[in-house]
């Protein structure tokens, strides 16, 4: 039997959901692989929803909103872009970025809706089933995705993405405007750091570990691990529990 992708769509109430309804009224046919969750605005789609959907083993996630400039809530779709960019950056770490997509469909674009959905289904068919699909999920990948979800939910990332438009398009509290390039660098660094920190935290939640063991498990340089452990210690998220021989063992607080 050929692979039939399971896709989840988040459609904004005012444009894309109405466009999907119009496809129906116009009897425009497309494959039935997508299940839809209606939200009021594409900007309502919390990055967490996308990470959770992928952990469910769904093969693809489609977020749809109003065209730029036509958002029912003025600029909700601008915020959706920022969140989505962050999601893509995170998912690139685990090569899942091509399983999520963001597009704009207006209330009058029934044809466009059906075309986009058909295209996405086909693209996902070409990529193949999610490595996290229900029956035999890739456990290591699942761990990584969990770390990603947690990292994306950290204050640092959420506050940075929440402020992106303000600081790149207007000014920060010091009256400085940050260029998109500098912002992207900031975000990339934050994503990289927080991802590693989340992985460390998840490991330590299972059992106390040494820097060396952590480094082996998440396959990064022990110095890098130590650096991040110290940050986490500063945040009171980890502590040293004991010293075995000369090796400190760290524990989640």
């Amino acid at each position, binding site marked *: 039997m050929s692979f039939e992708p399971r896709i989840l769509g988040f459609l904004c109430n005012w444009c894309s*959901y109405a466009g999907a309804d119009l496809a*129906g009224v116009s009897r425009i046919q497309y494959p039935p692989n997508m299940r839809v969750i209606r939200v009021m605005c594409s900007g309502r789609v919390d990055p967490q929803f996308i990470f959770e959907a992928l952990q469910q083993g769904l093969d693809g996630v489609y977020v749809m909103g109003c065209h730029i400039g036509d958002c029912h*809530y003025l600029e909700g779709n601008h915020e959706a872009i920022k969140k989505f960019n962050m999601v893509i950056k995170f998912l690139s770490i685990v090569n899942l970025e091509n399983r999520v997509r963001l597009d704009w469909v207006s209330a009058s674009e029934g044809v466009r809706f059906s075309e986009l959905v058909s295209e996405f289904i086909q693209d996902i068919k070409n990529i193949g089933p999610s490595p996290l699909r229900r029956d035999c999920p890739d456990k290591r990948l699942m761990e990584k995705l969990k770390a990603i979800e947690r990292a994306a939910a950290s*204050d640092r990332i959420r506050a940075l993405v929440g*402020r992106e438009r303000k600081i790149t398009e207007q000014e920060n509290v010091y009256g400085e405007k940050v260029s998109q390039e500098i912002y992207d660098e900031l975000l990339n660094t934050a994503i990289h750091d927080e991802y590693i920190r989340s992985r460390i935290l998840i490991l330590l939640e299972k059992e106390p570990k040494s820097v060396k063991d952590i480094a082996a498990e998440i396959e990064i340089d022990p110095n890098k691990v130590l650096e991040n452990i110290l940050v986490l210690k500063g945040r009171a998220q980890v502590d040293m529990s004991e010293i075995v021989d000369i090796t400190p063992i760290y524990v989640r607080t």
Partner: protein
Amino acid sequence: MSKKSDENPRIGVFICHCGSNIGGLIDCKKLAEYSGTLPEVVYSEDNVYTCSETGLNAIKKAIKDYNLNRVVVASCTPRTHEPLFRECIAEVGLNEYLFNFVNIRDQCTWVHMKDAEGAYKKARDLVKMGAARAAKLEPLDKVSVQIQPVALIIGGGVAGMSAALNLNNQGYETHLIEKEDQLGGRLTSLHTLFPSNIDASELLANFVNKIQLAKNLTIYISAKLRKIDGFVGNYSVEIDKAGEIIKLMVGIIIVAVGASLFIPKHMLGYDGKKRITQQELEVILKNNDLNTNNIVMIQCVGARNEERSYCSSVCCMTALKNAIFISNKNPGAHITILFRDLYTPGTKYEAMYRKARELGILFIRYTEKKELKVEENEVRVFNEYLGEEIIVPYDLLVLSTPLIANEDNKALARLLKVPLESNDFFLEAHVKLRPNDFATDGIFIGGAAKWPVDITEAITQGYAAASRASTILSHDVIEVEGTTSYLPEWNKNLCSGCEVCIKVCPYKAIIKNEHDEIEIIQALCKGCGVCGATCSKQAIEIKHFTNEQILSEIYACGGRDVY
């Protein structure tokens, strides 16, 4: 303020056949049986039409008999039928927000007609997701909003004037803005009106006279909407009247901006002299300037083609009206109408066509495939019936061109945050159920702003829009959606005061109050949910679209237990 309800969910699921629209493709009985097996679903049934009296009574009966506290209907689309079902469950004492809609028609059976099995599986998943969300629904209170009993009409054409006079007659303070320097819109360029043949100027004078006599009706000519803020009942608008800024508070807005005429530049030899548009012919007739005997009219110029696929609906009748007028005045005139299809709907318009035939006006059909050739003094047309090209001489060639969307529709749509359709006409909330409403509360539409209409229809729609608007204006207070964002008491300690919510809120509905706490002003919040999705602590909740509710749908769709 809502609070977590502690009663156990008892869900009822109703699967609608929608006649054969859903039931014709998928097995609704089986779907209802499946629904009955879902967690916390205590009752399920299928109905031929759940929205019918019988269907609604079945819901009410089941709520009583099975002590249901959540209702799921799987049928058409929430965009049209959610209010009906909400009202239904409210009638038997359930909070209307304890209803969940599942779309298995517009987004399922209608679009997967050739894949019954795929459609069934999708419907099954959607019902499962819908029931999962229903279990997490919370009762909500609606927000009360004071209504300013003041109307703003954009567009001083026949639809706008009709709407303005109607609302004004009902006693509401009314403001009408017109971008041109006089009232009348397209009426100003017309000669006579079909089917009654009265003078357009007579009708216009009648309107203008009534408007001048009206009290509490203010006209702003050479004026445009500049800015708009607020919400139903309380729109604060700024009008730019030739540079002067006027600020108003209005309760409702009617869009009656009409349409523009397509000018056939570089088409069929159009030159505005010998080869003119119907509108230019009307001016000639108005000035009693016509002195030619051979007149050829070409229909559907620039219409019903790839670029503009729609029928402009008024051009056939305009051509007939003008041809009959000329023929009556000058029985010796030779008038030929080259048409692709002739649309003369209804009792009166078809009679005009018969009259034209009786007067000896010639009708020749042409097709898009075999193009017309316009030469200096003749038109070559392939006659479908004869199967050969014929030559029709002319002294005056009149091109019937369609009404098209105004160029500034886009800007206005953006300002009002209402949608346009693919030809840039304004798009109503629903073509049948809400033909004169926009999806945005308190904004209405009438006349040729929506698609080309004749004068009679424009008047009718002006009245229709006014009547819809008065359903709001006639109340001192109305209730609006309670689906706003809020910072729940139990999440207040999470808030770190980072203020990103304040930054992303497009409505300035979030402030920091005197206690240095985040406060969300309910009446200003429109419930987009962006603050909730952005909040660095995920402390802000979006009522009716809570994280818990959306996640329950995701988990039901995925089908894996939450780790």
